[in-house]
């Protein structure tokens, strides 16, 4: 299960809405081993594409080092789908590389309703998990 604050939930949705129709992506870091998403880090989508995302490699190095220095890990890795449902695509599954992360998918395909779902992706296998939003 992913437990996330209303504040961080709203930040992810706002980022996805702002970058629509391109895909938005980012990380929420948290203390290593805690499973608590705490620090919101929106990332540049280097692809600037409505169908693909990729973290900018230089920005990723900087952010990953910073997490390392602060003894954090990527607790949540999120991105948006802008025309399809909030379910991992084939490419999402094949490139998933953080076995400990919650992969959050947001869909902005509808103007008035945002889908927000979370998954574990391990060795090509997708498992959806409940999302608990807390104040």
């Amino acid at each position, binding site marked *: 299960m992913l437990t996330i604050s209303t504040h961080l939930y709203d930040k992810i949705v706002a980022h996805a809405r702002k970058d629509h129709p391109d895909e938005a992506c980012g990380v929420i870091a948290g203390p290593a081993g805690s499973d608590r998403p705490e620090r919101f880090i929106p990332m540049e989508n280097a692809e600037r594409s409505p169908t693909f995302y990729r973290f900018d490699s230089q920005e990723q190095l900087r952010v990953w080092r910073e997490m390392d220095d602060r003894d954090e890990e990527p607790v949540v890795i999120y991105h948006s789908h802008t025309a399809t449902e909030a379910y991992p695509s084939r490419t*999402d*599954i094949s490139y*998933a*590389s*953080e076995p400990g992360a919650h992969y959050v998918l947001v869909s902005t395909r509808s103007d008035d309703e945002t889908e927000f779902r979370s998954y574990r992706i391990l060795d090509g296998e997708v498992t959806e998990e409940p999302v608990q939003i807390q104040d």
Partner: protein
Amino acid sequence: MAIEVRIPTILRTYTDGAKQVEGSGATLAELISDIESRHSGLSARLIDGGALRRFVNVYLNDEDVRFLSGLDTPVKDGDTVTVLPAVAGG
């Protein structure tokens, strides 16, 4: 002195859990082949068909080696090489 190579979580199965390993070589390709001799299997996760895999980022110190000379990038003692799987999808 040696060249330090930082290994991401997902590849630590090849390094007995070690976050970093050391190696030597004059180029990135030589360094990877030196490390492969002690951590078998790692090379295939980084290189495919003689080139770096598209969804693996390799940095020499602070620079993505794609913007240097890829596998031919010269390396030297005291350098740090960082491997990070690209975060990407559709």
